């Protein structure tokens, strides 16, 4: 793999130079403790030390609401063609979010591939950035604390610089264009990188033991832990909205005022809402809050493993951050395992 070095004093120039290839979206501060991904107007806004944004980068590929079709009573349906005019460069994605995108890619591919998703996805470039975990990060437990693929460039922070891994041909175009800002990486840099990697694994403060978890979840499906969590959960759906791998949506038609035309939309949905399973006639299949909160957790850590061979969770900690009831996913599984009461 091609590896280069970006000195820190050049980092804003580097980000600006990337605009040659498309729109650059960066993490910026929103309020005191929150961050969002936003289209870059000034590279000085980049929050280099950010840890997690409120919403994950999936919003660039699966917007919270999008029109799929336009219709007219006489002409019938017409497909909306989404997509970007230019390449959208997502700058500063941490490994968990890069894995989140890879999981969304799997879900929207398959027996039927979702052309709307891929019409946006094809124009997304990813520039990763290393990070230091806090007390809500458990990516190491999910195997998502580093990435081997899914990025065009990946920036690993060193003391004075960033080591840049070039992942793709498009990544190579970006570093060629910015070659005047970059240096060759040295043996010293590689040593520093290894030292930082070794230190990083001790920086994690929480751990989610995934061994045998699908089986344990099946065994414990009647556990009273779910009733406790169900009593705590407000079924607000915040955890779904901020989750990098939650992919569910509703579809509905919205009529224009002319009464004959309109659009068919899809919009993010959450399995925590009671209506999620409601069929015509009113029956629902997960009546209690406990049923629904259990379904969400078991889907991520159990069913997803059975379907795709890996958990549908990347350990980003957003659901812990967003939960107004203070439910912590790591604690939920520890309680189910009987590790803590």
């Amino acid at each position, binding site marked *: 793999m091609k590896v280069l070095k970006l000195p820190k004093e050049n980092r804003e120039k580097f980000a600006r130079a990337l605009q040659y290839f498309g729109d650059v979206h960066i993490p910026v501060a929103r309020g005191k403790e929150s961050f969002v991904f936003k289209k870059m107007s000034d590279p000085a806004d980049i929050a280099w030390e950010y840890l997690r944004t409120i919403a994950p980068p999936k919003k660039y590929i699966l917007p919270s609401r999008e029109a*799929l079709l336009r219709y007219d009573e006489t002409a019938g349906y017409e497909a909306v063609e989404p997509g970007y005019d230019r390449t959208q460069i997502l700058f500063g994605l941490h490994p968990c979010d890069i894995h989140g995108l890879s999981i969304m890619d799997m879900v929207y591919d398959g027996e039927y591939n979702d052309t709307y998703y891929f019409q946006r996805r*094809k124009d997304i470039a*990813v520039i990763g950035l290393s990070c230091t975990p806090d007390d809500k990060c458990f990516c190491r437990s999910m195997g998502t604390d580093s990435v081997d693929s899914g990025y065009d460039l990946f920036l690993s922070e060193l003391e004075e610089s960033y080591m840049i891994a070039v992942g793709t041909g498009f990544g190579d175009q970006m570093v060629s264009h910015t070659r005047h800002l970059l240096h060759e990486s040295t043996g010293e840099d590689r040593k520093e990188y290894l030292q930082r990697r070794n230190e990083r694994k001790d920086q994690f403060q929480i751990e989610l033991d995934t061994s045998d978890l699908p089986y344990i979840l099946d065994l414990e499906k009647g556990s009273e832990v779910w009733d406790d969590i169900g009593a705590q959960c407000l079924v607000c759906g915040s955890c779904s909205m901020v989750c990098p791998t939650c992919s569910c949506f509703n*579809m509905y038609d919205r009529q224009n005022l002319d009464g004959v035309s309109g659009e068919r939309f899809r919009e993010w949905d959450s399995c925590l809402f009671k209506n999620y399973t409601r069929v015509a006639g009113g029956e629902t299949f997960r009546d209690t809050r406990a049923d629904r909160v259990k379904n969400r957790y078991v889907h991520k850590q159990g069913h997803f493993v059975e379907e795709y061979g890996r958990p549908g969770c990347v350990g980003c900690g957003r659901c812990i951050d967003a939960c107004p009831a203070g439910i912590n996913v790591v604690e939920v599984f520890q309680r189910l395992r009987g590790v803590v009461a």
Partner: protein
Amino acid sequence: MLRSNIYEFQSKAHEENPYFPKLARIVRRVPMVEDNHLFLVRFDNPADDEQFDYIPGQFMEISVIGTGECPISLSSTPTRKGMLEFCVRRMGRVTNALYQLRDNDVIGIRGPYGNGFPVHEMEGSNLLLIAGGLGMAPLRSMLNYALDNRRKYERLILMYGSKYPEDILFRDELESLRGRQDIDCMLTVEQSYSLPDAKPWGGRIGMVTDLFKDIRDLDPENTYAIACGPPIFYKYVIDKLIERHFPKDRILISLERRMECGIGKCGHCGIGYKYTCIDGPVFTYWDALNLPEMIA
């Protein structure tokens, strides 16, 4: 190991749009019982008609332009070319809007979706079809498919339970099968009448599970039981089948769930790691035992 993000997804973006409904027309509508009408539908474009094929047990997403979409199972059989038939109960928003439409009005349809009944694997076996209420809608497709391929299957038995005689779907069609030697067609109702001027009922009264005692010498090891009905129906029917030593993977059930997309993306019909829309709607009882919430 490395992949090119920016180029990898190009081809996927330009495949056929799976959400795009094809235009079709309601050719005719046959009232069957109250709020249960059979809609006979044909594609607007003859080329769509020619390309279209399906398996009994599959369903389609039906769009009423301006209202939305809902999944409806096919009641017709692919062995009889011509119109697609959907037996629709007026129940929710979209089906109510569908009932407002008139003959020759345009709708959108996409599909077929779902696995359908395993018509090929079942060849050489006896078929025991068990329907409750509106569960007859998808089973009617299987029934007519089996009648049209009669030599491929051994004994063919239909047990169908309704609440009242006037609730029996496809009543004339099913009653006309009664004299035939190649099918054992058993109908039963819970109560013989509800309306004073209803056509008199000379048939059986009782639950669908009571019909089991009339079945003689049916080898469960060489029979597929296909059950379709409301949630409560499954519990009683499956108990009977297990009592009669049917292997769990020879008991097939067809399930109803909320579906928005029909193609395994929107999540609503998920049961465990299966999606009713692409992994079902037909599941074996073995699947049901291993997936939570499958049967109420």
